[in-house]
């Protein structure tokens, strides 16, 4: 990567808002006196957290103006980055966005440059300490125990399948998949051997050959998720329209930069979101089917890198898919189970047993802030503001598979999962020193938080509907929608 270096900078860098997030950049002409200009806007910028140069750069529509004023507190990025149209929307939603930002600013350390820089320095120092304490070294014995567990589940599933107890067999197969995914997650983060190719092959064997999903899809998705965690328009892990919306911002036809399309707040979404707090668990039962869809989309539409060190992963993954459907589809479903009733039962049970995984994945982010405090917030603060941990006894660690230390994992993604509990103590110390609150809930409380968040947004959907009805009756803005 360093061969792509084109120069150096001096002094502290002040972040721009990236173009993908709606940032505007002025062209540079050689005649302008750059030194003066630079000192000018840097002094201006350090006094305000957002990037005011963009405000001056765009002087077109009134929508832009309105947005720009909100960027002075934080960059609430524009809805679609291109081809923006004026779309009327209820004022209370914008007010709500502001409210959440103000709430976060009051709870978390201030966004001034000095404070954020000191957080960064402490974060880097902690990384050195973690390395020195050997927490990056993988404990292979722990993975041996994991493997024993996987073998146990797989052989129980096989045993009951031979016996003809299809439901029981499907249950153990579901357990097997549920547990395997955690190791695929570690492998995807290079948390096992820390070697890119070895870990990726482990991951592909688990995810594709044994689980029928795509590791490459997961990586593409997950990298973005880790960088722009809980950002309504950028983070694919919280974009589940039309089923769930964890932020009121989804109620305004938001443009997803990951999927590159508008997430429509349509009639279906309106109905689903109104009851999303009740539909949360039932829908998650079908979560794995959605993963198949996303995986195939990734593999078949060629979203995988075709060049570079990962060029061959796609082909290995396709072989993995064939392998999976041979053993699962043909050998297990078709050859081992006699009738269609049992086959459907087997598929449903085995896939639904993995539902706790989907709860665990969503748990650590759904209840946390989705406010965007702009590009001046340091990486560690953003991670800790948008992620929570689950408090659980040590013996239950296997069930959560490392996802219970999600906040720590987001800070240091390459720490092998069995070391996360020890790292937690160090991170807590870091949080105390920097004044960043460390969010931790028990599994039950975390679930309650998620449900209440979903209920909260559902309430806003109802409110929006009421507004629209009232407006239609009185003919105030009869024109829109």
């Amino acid at each position, binding site marked *: 990567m360093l061969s*792509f*270096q084109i120069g150096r900078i001096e002094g502290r860098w002040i972040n*721009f808002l990236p173009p*993908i997030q709606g940032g505007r950049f002025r062209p540079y002409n050689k005649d302008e006196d750059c030194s003066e200009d630079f000192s000018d806007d840097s002094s201006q910028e350090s006094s305000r957290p957002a990037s005011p140069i963009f405000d001056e750069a765009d002087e077109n529509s009134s929508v832009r103006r309105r947005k720009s004023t909100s960027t002075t507190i934080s960059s609430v990025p524009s809805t679609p980055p291109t081809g923006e149209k004026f779309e009327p929307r209820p004022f209370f939603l914008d007010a709500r966005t502001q409210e959440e930002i103000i709430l976060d600013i009051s709870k978390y350390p201030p966004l001034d440059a000095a404070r954020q820089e000191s957080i960064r320095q402490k974060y880097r120092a902690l990384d050195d300490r973690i390395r020195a304490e050997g927490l990056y070294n993988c404990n292979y014995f722990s993975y041996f125990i994991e493997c024993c567990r996987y073998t146990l589940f797989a052989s129980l599933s096989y045993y009951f399948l031979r016996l003809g107890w299809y439901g029981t067999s499907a249950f153990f197969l579901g357990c097997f998949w549920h547990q395997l995914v955690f190791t695929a997650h570690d492998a995807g983060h290079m948390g096992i051997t820390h070697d890119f190719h070895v870990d990726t092959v482990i991951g592909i064997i688990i995810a594709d050959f044994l689980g029928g999903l795509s590791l490459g899809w997961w*990586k593409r998705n997950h990298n973005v998720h880790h960088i722009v965690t809980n950002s309504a328009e950028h983070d694919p892990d919280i974009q589940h329209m039309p089923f769930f919306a964890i932020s009121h911002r989804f109620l305004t036809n938001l443009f997803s930069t990951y999927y590159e399309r508008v997430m429509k707040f349509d009639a279906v979404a309106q109905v689903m979101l109104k009851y999303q707090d009740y539909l949360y668990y039932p829908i998650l039962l079908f979560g794995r089917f959605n993963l198949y869809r996303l995986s195939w989309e990734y593999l078949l539409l060629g979203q995988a890198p075709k060049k*570079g060190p990962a060029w061959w992963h796609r082909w290995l993954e396709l072989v993995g898919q064939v392998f999976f459907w041979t053993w699962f589809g043909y050998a297990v479903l078709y050859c081992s189970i006699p009738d269609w009733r049992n086959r459907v039962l087997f598929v449903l049970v085995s896939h639904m047993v993995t539902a706790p995984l989907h709860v665990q994945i969503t748990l650590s982010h759904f209840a946390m802030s989705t406010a965007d405090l702009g590009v001046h917030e340091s990486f560690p603060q953003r991670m800790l503001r948008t992620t929570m941990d689950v408090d659980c006894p040590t013996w239950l660690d296997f069930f959560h598979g490392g996802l219970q230390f999600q906040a720590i994992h987001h800070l240091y993604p390459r720490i092998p999962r069995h070391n996360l509990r020890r790292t937690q103590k160090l991170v807590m110390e870091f949080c105390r020193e920097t004044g960043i609150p460390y969010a931790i809930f028990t599994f039950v409380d975390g679930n309650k938080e998620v449900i209440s968040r979903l209920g909260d947004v559902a309430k806003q959907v109802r409110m929006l509907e009421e507004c629209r009805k009232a407006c239609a009756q009185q003919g105030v803005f009869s024109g829109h929608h």
Partner: protein
Amino acid sequence: MRLPTPAPTSPEHHHAFSRQLHYFPLFLLLYVRGPAVHGVRTLSRLAFVRWVTRDASMISCRAPLRTLLMWQNMAETVSPAVAAARSRKETVLSRRQIEGMIAEGRHIFIFENRVIKADAWMKFHPGGEKAIQHMVGRDATDEINAYAFPSMTCSPDS
């Protein structure tokens, strides 16, 4: 056999060079079927190893990376152009200049006070293009150290 000395400082050269290496499995044939002359076999084996790691040479294993850097150093002593490119890396760029480059559509981010232009690298990035796009115009030091693999960020000078 003399290996070509590329100027790996520019990404375009990098890729042109790795494309040449595609023909190298021929050397495997030479190794397996060729005359049992020691030099031929050694060279063809070496060539094959380089072919296998051709795309990975930039990042995955350190050995090819080191070879590449060796060539770079060799090239530098020979070619003043390469030396110039080296010193270009040390040019101090102002924030305003970088803003201008991004306005032209370049994908530029900061890593440990270095200005990195990732355009050529984007489609090779195993973690996807989106991840890079979100870091354009920003200091990506913490993100890169957290996610990208270590050999990608080790300095060619060290």
